[in-house]
């Protein structure tokens, strides 16, 4: 939870001041700009944000998927006592798939179309463990059954295209979990799926998490899914974490105007229907030309309340605002709490 902690009692995952920048023809794209967070073993952290917020790049950096020749990475990522950014590429590769695994929105980004699904999972096992083919195959069948693939004995020799989208997603999850990774990063794992299948997959991930004690980072834009599965939430905007806290805190006592804006933008099934939605105005910032002060200022309804125009010129820091709650905002604490209560009251329909 703490964005920065002492090195004596390091949590399972600790990211400190992570920055990722991509040089492009149009200029330097600062995709991630000073992200710090930490996570205890077995917990689920949701990283929420819209496109361009840097949520996926943060995950890819933790996963070691950022090409170091194409991007500038700085900061530290400590996983289970080991720092990953300074680690040579081949050692990172060794961790991928064994210690850390990732699932994506599109299962075909993980599955090879030419190979049978069973063979692909068997290869994932044998790449990391010294184990015979037959044993690997029976382990594969076992895992495919666990993720809910029907008629496993037949399906294990199927090609990816012979399976439905939900089934492929399950195969990818089976492959990600086959080496019992300590950390699972799920990047929009259900976005391409129908709601009923999404319900199946979310349930599956949470059951497997309970069983294996896996730590999960869930990247999503869906605030409903976050409420369903996350212990902690990091809200990202313009490459920075703008609010961080326990899930209940973020939904019941949010403070950053962007978080409030997200909550009031989403059409809700559990609230009295508003005549109109109350969305954040404007568009997300271009990562090439980020605003100088607060990244959210051009879309914020409250920046004029801060004296001296600090929002336009001074970059706010992510500061504690109560226990286990961090907010990046120039507004005075009492003032933003008051704003939040007013907005949430309107949302509640009273």
């Amino acid at each position, binding site marked *: 939870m703490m964005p920065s902690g002492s090195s004596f009692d390091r949590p399972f995952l600790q990211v400190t001041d992570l920055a990722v920048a991509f040089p492009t023809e149009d200029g330097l794209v600062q995709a991630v700009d000073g992200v710090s967070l930490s996570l205890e073993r077995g917990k689920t952290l949701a990283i929420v944000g*819209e*496109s361009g917020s840097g949520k996926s790049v943060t995950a890819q950096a933790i996963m070691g998927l950022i090409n170091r020749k194409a991007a500038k990475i700085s900061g530290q990522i400590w996983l289970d006592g080991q720092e990953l950014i300074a680690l040579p590429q081949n050692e990172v590769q060794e961790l991928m798939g064994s210690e850390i695994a990732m699932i994506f929105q599109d299962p075909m980004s993980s599955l090879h179309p030419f190979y049978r699904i069973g063979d692909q999972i068997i290869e994932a096992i044998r790449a990391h463990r010294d184990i015979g083919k037959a044993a690997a195959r029976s382990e594969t069948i076992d895992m495919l*059954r*666990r993720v*809910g*693939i*029907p*008629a*496993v004995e037949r399906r294990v020799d199927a090609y990816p295209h012979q399976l*439905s*989208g*939900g*089934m492929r997603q399950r195969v990818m999850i089976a492959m990600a979990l086959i080496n019992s990774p300590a950390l699972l990063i799920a990047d929009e794992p259900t976005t391409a799926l*129908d*709601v*009923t*299948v*999404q*319900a*199946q997959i*979310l*349930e*599956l991930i949470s*059951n497997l998490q309970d069983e294996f004690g896996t730590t999960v980072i869930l990247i999503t*834009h*869906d*605030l*409903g*899914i*976050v*409420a*369903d599965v996350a212990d902690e939430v990091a809200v990202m905007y313009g490459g920075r974490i703008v609010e961080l806290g326990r*899930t*209940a805190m973020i*939904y019941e006592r949010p403070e950053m105007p962007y978080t409030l*804006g*997200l*909550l*009031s*933008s*989403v*059409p*809700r*099934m*559990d*609230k*009295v*229907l*508003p*005549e*109109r*939605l*109350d*969305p*954040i*105005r404007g*568009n*997300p910032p271009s990562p090439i030309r980020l605003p100088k002060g607060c990244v959210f200022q051009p879309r914020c309804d409250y920046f004029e309340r801060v004296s001296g125009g600090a929002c336009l010129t001074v970059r706010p820091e992510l500061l504690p605002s109560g226990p286990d709650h961090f907010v990046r905002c120039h507004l005075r604490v009492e003032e933003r709490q008051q704003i939040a209560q007013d907005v949430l009251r309107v949302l509640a*329909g009273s």
Partner: protein
Amino acid sequence: MTMETGEVLRATDLHTYFAVRSRGIIPRTIGQVKAVDGVDLRLDRGETLGLVGESGSGKTTAARSVLMLVRPTSGKVELEGQEITSLSARALEPVRRKAQMIFQDPYNALNPRHTVGGIISAPFRVQRVEPAGGVRNAVLELMERVGLNPEHYNRYPNEFSGGQRQRIGIARAIALRPKLIVCDEPVSALDVSIQAQILNLLRDLQREFKIAYLFVAHDLAVVRQISHRVAVMYLGHIVETATREVIYSAPLHPYTHSLLSAVPIPDPQRQKRRTRIVLQGDLPSPIDPPSGCVFRTRCFQAQERCAVEVPPLVEVAPGHQVACHFPITVGEVPAKVQSAHAAAPGEDDGARDPVTGVHFYEPGPPHA
């Protein structure tokens, strides 16, 4: 008659089948995908009908059939009382003025080599309509109306964000003041803050121009926000249709219950209390749909009768139609679902999820 009732669209017994052909030198038709299999739709002036369902439910094909973008295999479509299903492609041209479409992917729906001005003025050119004050002025006005900067008239689509591109698509769609717009997942590719902006814009335009929307979407919260009535599709059939209020607070079809219970709610406390009906298995193939009720293979209410007898879509209350032999109320669902899971036999080779959440299935609150 039509003018008095204000009916814009009526589709009757719509069937749209796609032939499945064998491979080889002489392909033979070896089956049919029954994408839309006997669907009735009706829309009044200024009204929104939400058409929901999962992928493969036939909702997009139904919507396209209504516009004759896909020729229906049988059935009748009437636009403002004019039967259009029998019209030739050429005779359809003037009809298209009345009915337009907005697409899901604002990146692919716009020609990248045309300027925004060119894109939005296309309907005027194609239909040879000369608005008072000229096409250019009309386009500038449209851009203003949908929230685009008219100074960007000469820019290309790639210079715009997803939300702005969807605004371009909307400006094009309303250019000729259509009576009906088919919206196919118009906000599902957009970020939540932008999605809300577009939903508000669609609602404002509907008020202003009395446009009817056939709104195809899989997101039930979005559909609730914009629709007056909702039709739920499954495997080519409408299984339940009613006013928005009834669909969200008093649905009767087991599939509607399953859909509603599966949508996660952005409220951690409440979300953890809900019963989630986890459907087993996948959507059956539309080439070989189940006998009897198409939903029975995944239904927690299914009994023997469901395999033999097709449930007709019957009116259970004014405006509320359900196609189910064993409809069930919201209050009865939790007990039913829990017992169904407790007595779960391992059918389908263990396609069942290990555990199923037994929270409380809460119906939606009353509408304002």
